[in-house]
């Protein structure tokens, strides 16, 4: 059930009541069909509660958290895998809310987004992941929450998807290799996960540790990078509304090569910041070394903000090639913070971005 916000208003201004009523309206037939056997009428009623809770999740008291916590949501946003079944991302996610993010952008094709990937665990060529990740199983999946938190805990991917309403966000993705794409992600704000995780006052940074499975990831058997691939954000960056944990693409589940079942998306930073197939979210007091920092300290910094003024020894960063432009598509100028300056510029006020690259 996709809830389209036709009014083009800011996503935060959508009334929860509006979402619910439209959802119920659009899917009434479907609900009635299944209601008799599974008692989902009650679930439909709960939807409104969930939406309301998600709306106020910013304020979060433990009482609200109870409402949005795992187990309370009415229905699964996706069909769980049966035993022995192979993961197929080509299924529509339920309950995806359209947002105003990037609605004016020209989206790249599904084919380009899913066949041109940097995911070194599945090979170093761009075409490798689509082939090599076929046998990877992103379900069932749990993510553990560790470090400076009230209580260490784990969460299943199906429950993670219920921490906040699923949103479609069309974001630009700027790779450090000077190409870019426009991708329609489906996900939940990272902030909603952080609030649920209940970090302590000592938590100043968040670390994302990703899958490192020797059985299904041929790349990790070579010491190309310091596996597992690890990324990190400063707490205020992670709490920024733009930061997303993506669980879907094009309204469907995330394909393996794009980081199934859950990956980080921080569109104002170079693409490599977006750790894929996250297994652990760790809150820490001190800034940690990310995988690419260890690999090339002079080339890759912790912040890795898209910045046309800070050059990279291999690729020009002042311009980029948009994927999907064909042979004669040429280049466009790269924008500061990948065009998201008004949303994130304040995070770096007074910082020397030349040194903190």
């Amino acid at each position, binding site marked *: 059930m996709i809830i389209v916000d036709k009014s083009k208003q800011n996503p935060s201004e959508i009334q929860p009541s509006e979402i619910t009523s439209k959802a119920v309206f659009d899917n009434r037939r479907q609900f009635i069909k299944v209601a008799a056997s599974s008692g989902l009428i009650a679930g439909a009623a709960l939807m409104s509660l969930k939406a309301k809770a998600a709306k106020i999740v910013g304020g979060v008291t433990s009482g609200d958290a109870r409402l949005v916590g795992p187990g309370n949501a009415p229905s699964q946003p996706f069909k769980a895998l049966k035993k022995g079944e192979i993961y197929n991302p080509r299924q529509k996610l339920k309950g995806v809310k359209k947002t105003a993010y990037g609605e004016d952008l020209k989206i*790249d094709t599904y*084919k*380009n987004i899913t*066949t*041109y990937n940097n995911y*070194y665990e599945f090979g*170093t060529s*761009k*075409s490798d992941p689509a082939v090599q990740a076929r046998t990877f199983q992103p379900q069932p999946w749990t993510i553990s929450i560790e470090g400076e938190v009230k209580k260490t805990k784990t969460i299943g991917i199906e429950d993670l998807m219920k921490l906040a309403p699923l949103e479609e966000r069309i974001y630009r993705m700027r790779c450090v*290799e000077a*190409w870019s794409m426009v991708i329609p992600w489906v996900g939940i704000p990272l902030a909603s996960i952080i609030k649920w995780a209940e970090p302590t006052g000592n938590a100043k940074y968040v670390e994302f540790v990703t899958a490192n499975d020797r059985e299904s990831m041929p790349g990790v058997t070579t010491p*190309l*990078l310091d596996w597992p691939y690890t990324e990190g954000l400063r707490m205020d960056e992670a709490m920024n509304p733009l930061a997303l944990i993506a669980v879907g693409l094009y309204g469907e589940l995330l394909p393996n090569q794009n980081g199934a079942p859950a990956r980080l998306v921080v569109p104002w930073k170079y693409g490599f910041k977006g750790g894929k197939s996250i297994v652990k979210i760790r809150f820490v007091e001190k800034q940690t070394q990310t995988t690419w920092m260890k*690999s090339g300290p002079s080339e890759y910094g912790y912040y890795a903000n898209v910045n046309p003024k800070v*050059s990279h*020894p*291999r*690729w*020009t960063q*002042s*311009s980029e*090639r948009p*994927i*999907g432009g*064909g*042979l*004669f*598509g*040429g*280049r466009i100028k790269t924008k500061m913070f990948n065009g998201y300056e008004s949303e994130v510029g304040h995070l770096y006020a007074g910082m020397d971005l030349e040194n903190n690259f």
Partner: protein
Amino acid sequence: MKKPNITAVKAVIWLLASIPIARLFWLGFNNDLGANPIEFVEHSTGLWALIFLLLSLTMTPTRLLTGQVWHIQVRRLIGLWMFFYATLHVVTYVWLDFNFLFDVMIDDVLEHPRILVGFAAFLLTIPLAATSNQYMMKKLKSKWKALHKTVYLVAILAVVHFLLLVKKDLTEPLYYTAVLLILFGIRIYYKHKKKPVMNTAQ
């Protein structure tokens, strides 16, 4: 070994050497160059330039190893195919990649050692291609040989250019580096080998 028909050998080289460019046109017309077609063409033409460069450098080592000399006659043809693909590589960069935005391009060349090295390699091939005819050979006499020794430098720059391109996985460029080192090794070995030994071997 009987000396093969050089004209036939050259015809085969022409045929084989035009396959990569024909393939690019075929893929291009069928819209099958992948998500990043410019990069595809850039990498493909660059790789074939390097392959022809290395092939041209195998002529002397194979003479040293086999004692055969007839194949030296196709070296110029192979060298010119190298220049053809190298030119396409640069044209792709200047036109398709940077769309003649010379200010951006100059920054790119100066700021990135990879581009600088590649560009230097290409510039050095221009006099080689220009003097590859009989007329220039006769005119330059002994200088011709000295001039064409810069091909060794071009080869070194070309593999360095490739090595610098790769973000992390150096496997592919290292294969080509290994081939170049082997070719250099054979030359050096024979150069330092004592003359009498060489004579008895023949």
